[in-house]
């Protein structure tokens, strides 16, 4: 029993040391991206103008950086929101779920499917008082090609020190459901935004 106790405490010490390196930012320190300036065009996505946002609307633990932009994609005008979280909202490894935020605002989800791409972004249709919107949302981790906490995500994290970074960005595109871009242009926009963000962190 003594040797078992010794082994278990040794495992705890090693795990604690590993955790100390990761949580202390010694294995992959977060890099805060500049979300202030965007090019006029990102792949198929046209960036039109910045939308002012009240700081209080971002909640008690707001993102460290954010951008709220009016955009146009495949002829449809909509909004792009990008939020960068260094640590503050990662109680469960991710920021607040977008669909929960919309539900809290009175939107009811009518349809949802995942787009067939590396990030597997969600496309959801919400309705409220006769109004309907389409929201495409996903999470970006630096150097990790998946938003899932599955084996693939873990393998990507173990594959490079950058994968241990704890920071994350939450992005969503919102369009009026009537005339919203199809899945194809949305995927192209997601890819373009991913590449743009990769250059910034």
């Amino acid at each position, binding site marked *: *029993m003594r040797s*078992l*106790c010794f*082994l*278990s*405490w040794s*495992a*705890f*010490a*090693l*795990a*604690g*040391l*590993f*955790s*100390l390196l*990761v*949580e*202390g930012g010694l294995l992959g320190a977060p890099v805060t991206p500049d979300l202030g300036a965007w090019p006029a065009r990102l792949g198929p996505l046209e960036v039109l103008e910045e939308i002012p946002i009240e700081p209080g609307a971002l*909640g*008690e*633990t707001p993102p460290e950086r954010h951008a709220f932009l009016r955009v146009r994609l495949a002829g449809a005008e909509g909004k792009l929101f990008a939020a960068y979280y260094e*640590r*503050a909202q*990662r*109680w*469960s*490894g*991710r920021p*607040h*779920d977008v669909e*929960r935020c919309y*539900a*809290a*605002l*009175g*939107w009811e989800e009518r349809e949802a499917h995942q787009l067939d791409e590396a990030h597997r972004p969600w496309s959801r249709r919400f309705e*409220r*008082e006769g109004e309907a919107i389409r929201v495409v949302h996903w999470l970006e981790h630096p150097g990790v090609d998946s938003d899932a*906490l599955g084996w693939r*995500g*873990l393998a990507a*994290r*173990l594959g490079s020190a950058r994968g*241990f970074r*704890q920071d*994350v960005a939450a992005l969503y595109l919102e369009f009026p459901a009537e005339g919203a871009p199809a899945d194809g242009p949305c995927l192209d926009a997601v890819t373009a935004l991913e590449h743009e963000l990769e250059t910034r962190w």
Partner: protein
Amino acid sequence: MSAPRTRAAVEAALGLALLAPLVREWFETASASSRLSYALLVPALALVLAWRARGAGAWAVERGGGLEPAFALAAAAALVLGALTGVFTLALLALPLALVAWTARWLGSGGVRRFAPSLVLLFAIVPPPMPLLDRVNPFLIQASGATAVTLLRPLDGGASWLGSTLAYRGWELRVAEACSGSGTFLCLGVLCAFLAGLFRLRPLAALVLVASSFPLTLLVNGVRIASSALVIDRFGVEAAQGLAHELLGQAVVLAGAALLALAVERLSARPVRTTEAAA
């Protein structure tokens, strides 16, 4: 200080040093979020329970059980998985798990039993996972809103609730997510667990008490939203902002705590009556 005590203190200090970034983040996040600030109370409440248990007589230190390695390994697993997945709550779980292992190491299984209420309460420093809260929140918001509308209907038959917005007497009050009631629910839940440990309730009675924090939260949060609407309607928007809003929120939690104390008084009084009747 004797040699074993010194060793125990050094081991505890080393363990805390390894977990220091987690403890720091826990403190910063719990301080910043009104929904999670209840967690700051937990160590103090656990200490009260531990202090009370400490003075309840001696116990035999029985070492060699499986508790120590089992909980130490569980703490190690929580640390590794939490760091790999970036799930902070999972990594933080290592702290109470390691404390149970450390208690078993130095005080034996008898010590773990003795301090069980405080050790169990310490697990409440780990906030419920966000995905779980995200699923509870919409229900809490809807139920709190429905309660508020029920309370306000006698004053305005057209009062209604949509999403998180209350319509009352021609104007709209959008209730912030922080006021969804999840913070009140967690705070009252921790108070229930503390009272159950303090009054040494039986497990079933303790479970009933902790479960009662849910309907109680719906009631007091509904009253909070309805009273905010009445205050705004009578005195204007400024009267329900800033300090006044915070004071109203605190008063609601205190009212809930007082109701809980009454419930505990009833639950803990029952066995005494039985004993008296038997005598």
